[in-house]
């Protein structure tokens, strides 16, 4: 009975997938004659946590943060927000532009700041909310299909970021800015930021009825409205949150390189975020969602990337390997495959019973 419960838990398959990816590294290490758990060794060196697992948690933070917003958006509106990558870039550019001043390409000390760092950070978060509100208005109040609505900022946000930065890479080379992508004490800050975001959102979802509202709107918008929910506002809030998440992820990503590289920040990350939601076992058709699944999905994607680096696979073929792994993971979770597995198990059970 207990065995059945574990395998039917919604998080079972996503967890199995991430473990499968990690297992590849164990096999590799054994074949290379390294220690069996070479991949998992975590140490404190040079005063900070080091190790592949830490890299996965650290580098996966941005996608994990994006996945929070994306899960809510997918659940409430049965559509995806494809603008998050561009919005990340816009928010990072806006922050660096505010701090460095328009048209300045590099600042290397706080004395050169045209505005305090905190203004830049708040500005970037505000810009994220603004983009989210724009998407939310189009989807919730103008009933535009989510993909079409967010397509606007997908193409425009990065370009606006370029304008804000005067077509330059803006460097804010001060340690204070680097802290969001660096370390607090021995812990990588992005891990902390992601953890805080995940905790905050799951608290709100668990302790208030918000989670239930979002699911009910996603399952049937009209029925929810008749039942007394303000469907439009709930969808709007989801997009707003998604924009805010993109802003936070943009800041983290830009802080890692202490600059606003508007061409590359968040490039194609919207696809990773959507993939994370799907890998987490969530339906892209909206309705019921599992936030923890999406988060696991996000780290699975990073685990694949880190594995590629660990295996030293040539960068030219990395996308192919990534695609193969994703196909396998998605196929394992596909309903027909699950049913087939269940049938297989039932058959075995029968045969055992007959004997």
């Amino acid at each position, binding site marked *: 009975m207990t065995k059945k419960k574990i395998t039917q838990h919604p998080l079972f398959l996503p967890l199995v997938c991430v473990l499968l990816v990690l297992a590849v590294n164990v096999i590799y290490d054994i074949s290379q004659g390294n220690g069996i758990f070479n991949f998992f060794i975590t140490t404190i060196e040079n005063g900070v946590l080091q190790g592949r697992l830490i890299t996965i948690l650290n580098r996966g933070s941005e996608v994990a943060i994006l996945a929070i917003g994306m899960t809510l958006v997918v659940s409430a509106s049965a559509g995806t927000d494809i603008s998050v990558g561009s919005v990340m870039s816009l928010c990072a550019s806006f922050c660096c532009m505010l701090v460095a001043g328009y048209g300045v390409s590099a600042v290397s000390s706080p004395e050169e700041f045209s505005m305090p760092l905190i203004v830049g950070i708040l500005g970037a978060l505000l810009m994220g909310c603004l983009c989210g509100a724009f998407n939310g208005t189009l989807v919730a109040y103008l009933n535009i299909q989510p993909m079409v609505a967010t397509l606007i900022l997908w193409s425009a946000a990065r370009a606006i970021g370029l304008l804000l930065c*005067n077509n330059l*890479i803006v460097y804010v080379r001060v340690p204070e800015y680097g802290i969001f992508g660096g370390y607090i004490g021995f812990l990588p800050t992005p891990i902390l930021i992601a953890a805080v975001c995940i905790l905050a959102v799951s608290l709100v979802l668990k302790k208030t009825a918000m989670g239930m509202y979002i699911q009910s709107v996603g399952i049937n918008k009209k029925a929810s409205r008749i039942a007394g929910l303000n469907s439009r506002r709930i969808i709007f809030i989801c997009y707003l949150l998604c924009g805010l998440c993109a802003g936070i992820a943009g800041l983290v990503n830009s802080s890692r*390189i202490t600059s606003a590289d508007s*061409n590359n920040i968040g490039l194609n990350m919207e696809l990773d975020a959507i993939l994370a939601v799907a890998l987490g076992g969530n339906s892209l058709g909206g309705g019921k969602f599992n936030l923890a699944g999406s988060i696991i999905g996000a780290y699975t994607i990073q685990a694949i990337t880190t594995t590629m680096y660990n295996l030293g696979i040539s960068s030219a073929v990395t996308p192919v390997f990534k695609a193969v792994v994703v196909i396998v993971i998605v196929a394992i979770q596909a309903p027909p495959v699950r049913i087939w597995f269940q049938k297989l198990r039932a058959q075995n059970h029968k045969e055992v019973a007959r004997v």
Partner: protein
Amino acid sequence: MKKILGMALAFALTLSLAACGGGGGGASSAAPAPAADQPSSAAPAADAPASQPADNAGGGDGVITVGFAQVGHESDWRTASTKSAQDVFAASNGYDLVFVDCDNDSARQLEAVRNFIQQGVDYIIIDPIVATGWDTVLTECDDAGIPVIIIDRTIDDSDKYVSWVGSDFKIEGLACGEWLKAYAEAKGISEINALVIEGSTGASATIGRTEGFKEIADREGWNIIASQSGDFTEAGGQEVMESYCQSYKGQFNVVICQNDNEAAGAMTAMDTAGISYGVGGDVILVSFDANRPYVQMVKDGKINANFECNPMAAPTVSEIIQQLEAGETPEKQVYVTESWFVAEDAVSKITVNGSEQPVILVTQEVVDGRPY
């Protein structure tokens, strides 16, 4: 419902148009800064072609209209290349520059070139984002009688251009190898274990630099432990170096970054891992491109050597245009001159591909004298 959707689509179109127009505006507002002597004339010159393309079609007023389809602005190097073009093709030099930042989108670049043909510019400069798929559009240029000059990256599937101006990336890679050999000898380093952070896969700079360095490495029997792509970005260099530090800590003594931005990322990653680099460090750090901030780092001893990839193709292109105006035939391939910068005076000369070349020890004057 339909009306609203229509309105939204129209709005989307306006927004994206505004973004495109804005791109041009951003470029033109950058123009006055380098052309400090004549800021007032430079700005309207760059704006004019966008608003009144028909007026330029004649070109009978002695002003040479040049269309430049730039890759994007993904690195400082690219920015320097753009600035160089804006300086050289300024109104004060008798040019009228139509600049398009293609934002690393090859479809947009083709569109830009077609727009140049429609606007009837006198010359087209292309820094091709991809090496193939150019024959059709270059034939169109040919039919319109507009000479095309290719800079920096190459085109593989068409020869319907007048000249190509750029760097010999393989020579850069060879120079890097030759310097490393001489430096190791001078310092008494017997074993070279190198990690390479490559540029974008398939880019000619990546291929040439990798080939050049590998040729020397094979000849000298060096060990290249790993070679992975950092996509020419700081974030990419950082992530690859982070992974290298975890896999090969204590096993390498040379890191080759194929551009400056990757070197910046690699430095952050090595700082985090507690690995010392540069002059007096455990790891010899080599970079390519030699932008001013990174030449400064050579002077500060953080980078051991930096191999220039000269982005200032515009002066050479201007010479070619003047040759064409005078009815002469320019060379099909023109290489820009490049220098090698180092932090210590252990090596003063290297022999690259049979020719002896000087190695420049970076001083404050060298840094101040860098144009980009």
